[in-house]
């Protein structure tokens, strides 16, 4: 789960990481008031789950409250990578002497959290890694002991060599950043940039935190940070019913059991000249109700011209899926053709149920995908 910059900064603040003051506005008038209260030159920043906000025009400087109002009126309602900006953060425009990067991620290969720091801040860290990998310093955190103080100190001294004052501040921030990660259940946490002000103080002026979805059930206060309005409604509905749905650009709607098979099915659609309209995993033990929901979500996408069911019955019973399809077809008008492939557990009963309701079913995956692509007019 992504959270917004202002929410991430609040987590930082709670852990004692120096963050500039600032408030969130949903109207231009509110932005003006916040700027007046801050009494200084401000930055108005779009709060959306997308990178590259600055390049898209979603971050603007404002010298006066009136300018802040104008900036906010331009940014609010703007589309950034398909997302509508509903909120802006109004925060003092800091004077910047230097920009660094400090972050932590779960490193899959080593099975550790890796803390990273670079004196090349303010740009995408992937870019730094590609161009000047020698400017990224790393510390692996042994999960048995957590971050040890000397590791934070070592990283800080590499970041600010010959500058013990800033290194001391940075070591403190790095320790608090790691604590924030653990407390919030984050899989990624970044300060980019970590700036040095003219008086030599370090401040986190941007913040990125990705929460591990598996943490949400035990962290109510973090789960409450989810911004449902910033997500596609169909994806929200799917999640609430225990399905995983991701909308794509094509016209062949896909309904599959299992994530790996769902991806392989999308790939096959493409292989046979079509484009998948979505990823949809109905999960392991799928009840007829889940199938009804899945079908409704796919049908609600106006781009869909043909629907493909691909079910490999193991735990999932093919007859459950067949009952779901029949039930759904009673409640909603089927405007597009449906191609059904199922094989495995209770395959024979499923075929009988479907044929009894006027559907036909096949057992070969490639044959079914080809047909679904053809029916979509590709």
């Amino acid at each position: 789960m992504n959270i917004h910059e202002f929410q991430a900064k609040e987590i930082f603040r709670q852990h004692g990481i120096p963050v500039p003051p600032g408030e969130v506005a949903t109207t231009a008038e509110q932005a003006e008031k916040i700027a007046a209260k801050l009494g200084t030159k401000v930055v108005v920043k779009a709060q959306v789950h997308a990178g590259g906000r600055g390049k898209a025009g979603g971050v603007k400087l404002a010298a006066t409250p009136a300018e802040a109002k104008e900036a906010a009126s331009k940014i609010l309602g703007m589309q950034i990578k398909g997302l509508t900006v509903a909120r802006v953060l109004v925060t003092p425009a800091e004077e910047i002497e230097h920009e660094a990067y400090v972050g932590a991620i779960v490193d899959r290969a080593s099975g550790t959290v890796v803390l990273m720091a670079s004196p090349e801040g303010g740009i995408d860290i992937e870019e730094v890694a590609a161009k000047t990998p020698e400017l990224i310093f790393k510390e692996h955190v042994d999960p048995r002991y957590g971050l040890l103080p000397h590791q934070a100190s070592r990283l800080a001294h590499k970041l600010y060599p010959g500058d013990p004052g800033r290194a001391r501040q940075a070591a403190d921030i790095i320790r608090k950043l790691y604590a924030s990660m653990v407390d919030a259940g984050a899989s990624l946490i970044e300060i980019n940039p970590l700036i040095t002000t003219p008086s030599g103080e370090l401040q986190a002026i941007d913040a990125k935190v990705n929460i591990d979805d598996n943490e949400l059930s035990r962290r109510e206060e973090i789960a409450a940070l989810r911004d449902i309005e910033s997500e596609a409604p169909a994806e929200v509905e799917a999640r609430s019913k225990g399905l995983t749905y991701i909308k794509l650009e094509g016209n062949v709607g896909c309904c599959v059991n299992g994530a790996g098979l769902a991806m392989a099915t999308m790939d096959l659609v493409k292989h046979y000249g079509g484009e998948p309209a979505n990823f949809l995993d109905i999960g392991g033990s799928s009840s007829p109700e889940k199938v009804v929901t899945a079908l409704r979500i796919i049908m609600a996408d106006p781009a869909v011209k043909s629907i493909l069911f691909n079910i490999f019955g193991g735990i999932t019973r093919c007859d459950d899926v067949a009952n779901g399809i029949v039930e759904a077809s009673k409640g909603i008008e089927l405007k597009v053709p449906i191609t059904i492939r199922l094989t495995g557990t209770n395959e024979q009963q499923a075929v009988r149920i479907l044929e009894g309701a006027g559907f036909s079913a096949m057992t070969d995956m490639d044959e079914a995908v080809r047909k679904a692509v053809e029916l979509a007019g590709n």
Partner: protein
Amino acid sequence: MAIFADSSTRVVVQGITGRDGSFHSAQMLEYGTKIAAGVTPGKGGQKFDGKVPIFDTVEEAVRKEGATASVIYVPAAFAASAICEAADSGVKLIVCITEGIPVLDMLRTTRYVADQGARLIGPNCPGMISPGQAKLGIIPGQIVEPGPIGVVSRSGTLTYEVVWALTREGFGQSSCIGIGGDPVIGTNFIDCLDAFEQDPQTEAIVLIGEIGGADEQNAARHIREHLSKPVVGFVAGRTAPPGRRMGHAGAIISGSQGTAAEKIATFRDNGVEVAERPVDVPAIVSKELNV
């Protein structure tokens, strides 16, 4: 022969009285798996299916029934602890089916299991099956046959699809291992490749990967350097968009890292043939084995 588990493996099922645990324990018994015991804290002294003794702790299951492997079906909130309990009790093979364990917990858990000298398969996986010998997990028994092909995969139903295609074409399996769809897992591709390389029954290996991480790329280089047996690859997710989690917690392209194209190219650069479609796997296996 087979890898990791065979007809001599004595299994303890953690969470045997739960909805999933009881259903799959019955299926495992039906397949012929030796289930020595079950564990559900608070239900010690009862019996599962009228015959399998249930204990409160894994330690008792090991001491009294000689369990050597564990299969875990407990809910996500208790699963990391269940894995550690199994490792601490001297179980040498731990298969965790449960999905939804936080990744920060898994960092500690995988380290703990390794420190106890145990092997973890999963979590968030279908488990493993050594056809004709033992089933530890949820892979349907009716789609496998004993034979010379080792199968290792990050997915569940996609594995069934490929295994079923192999079986239909007359290629039985030595063992099929689902290593799991999470970002941090116990046993990885390389561990399984090395085990299949050592297993006299295995003549060829099928590796099914997907987007996210670099486990496939590392496996590709390892195959060229260390494996003598042929390996056939498949990678799911060519059409997956970047930055989206495709069902599995670990199936995500981060920035430009972990794409299917990158993985397929790395396999091919290292001499591993990659199937375009799942249905193409048996033909490539056949070619590699000259049969």
